[in-house]
């Protein structure tokens, strides 16, 4: 066992176990905290794959932003010591069947597939390349999605304020 292997197993086991806990725990605030652990473990995986920028964005945006939003809304909408209802047996059965069946189907499909890695020389991923490609309009440039996402964020901002304001009547 080498270092990266141990780290990979630790992070993947942590993310699977904590996502199970986050789905199964009936105390909703704990579920949100388990979700935070999953997100941090996945950020560690990105870091292992040399995408440091993506790992940082994952930590800031998910762990710092979305989980805090979710915790706010939990505190605003539910009693903190109340437990979620037990799921109905039919829902539980449906969920188990869909999840197990989906996992079996996906594993069956991708285990037979051999992937062909590209032989082109690897790109050094640093902030310079990321910034250049994000604002480039040439080939391998992502200026258009970058601008579209800014419009989407503006629309989400306006829409959120409009939805959440108190109606005057």
């Amino acid at each position: 066992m080498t270092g990266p292997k141990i780290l990979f197993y630790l992070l993947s086991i942590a993310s699977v176990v904590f996502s199970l806990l986050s789905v199964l725990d009936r105390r909703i605030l704990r579920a949100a905290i388990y979700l935070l652990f999953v997100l941090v473990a996945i950020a560690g995986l990105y870091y292992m794959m040399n995408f440091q920028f993506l790992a940082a964005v994952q930590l800031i945006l998910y762990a710092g932003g979305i989980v805090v939003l979710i915790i706010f809304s939990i505190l605003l909408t539910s009693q903190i010591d109340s437990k979620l209802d037990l799921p109905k047996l039919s829902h539980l059965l449906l969920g188990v069947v869909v999840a197990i069946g989906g996992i079996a189907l996906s594993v069956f499909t991708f285990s037979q597939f051999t992937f062909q890695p590209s032989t082109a020389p690897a790109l050094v991923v640093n902030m310079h390349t990321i910034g250049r490609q994000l604002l480039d309009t040439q080939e391998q440039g992502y200026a258009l999605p970058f601008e579209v996402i800014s419009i989407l964020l503006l629309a989400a901002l306006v829409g959120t304020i409009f939805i959440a304001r108190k109606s005057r009547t």
Partner: protein
Amino acid sequence: MNLQSEIPLHYMILLSTLVFFIGLFGVLIRRNLITMLMGIELMLNAVNINFVAFNHYLYPNRLEGHFFALIVMAIAAAEAAVAIALIINIYRKFATVSVDDVNEMKY
């Protein structure tokens, strides 16, 4: 760190499959809007693992998966913000966030 020699790509896909279907399971068994939103976040994260892993293992000469994951994250943030605005509005009207009790439309 170069993972290709240490960990096969199939392990990464297996991990993301597990996380994705756990998220789907959570969406299916819970009736609370906030827990359903958390399941959706799990599923989006699983998809992101796949994009990043394919980028790292199969096309190390490009950054396509990296940027796709970045954009998925931005959309997830926008989606969470809008969803929470909706949930708080629903809570004001119905005093509950359970999808079974929210069964009235405006007209």
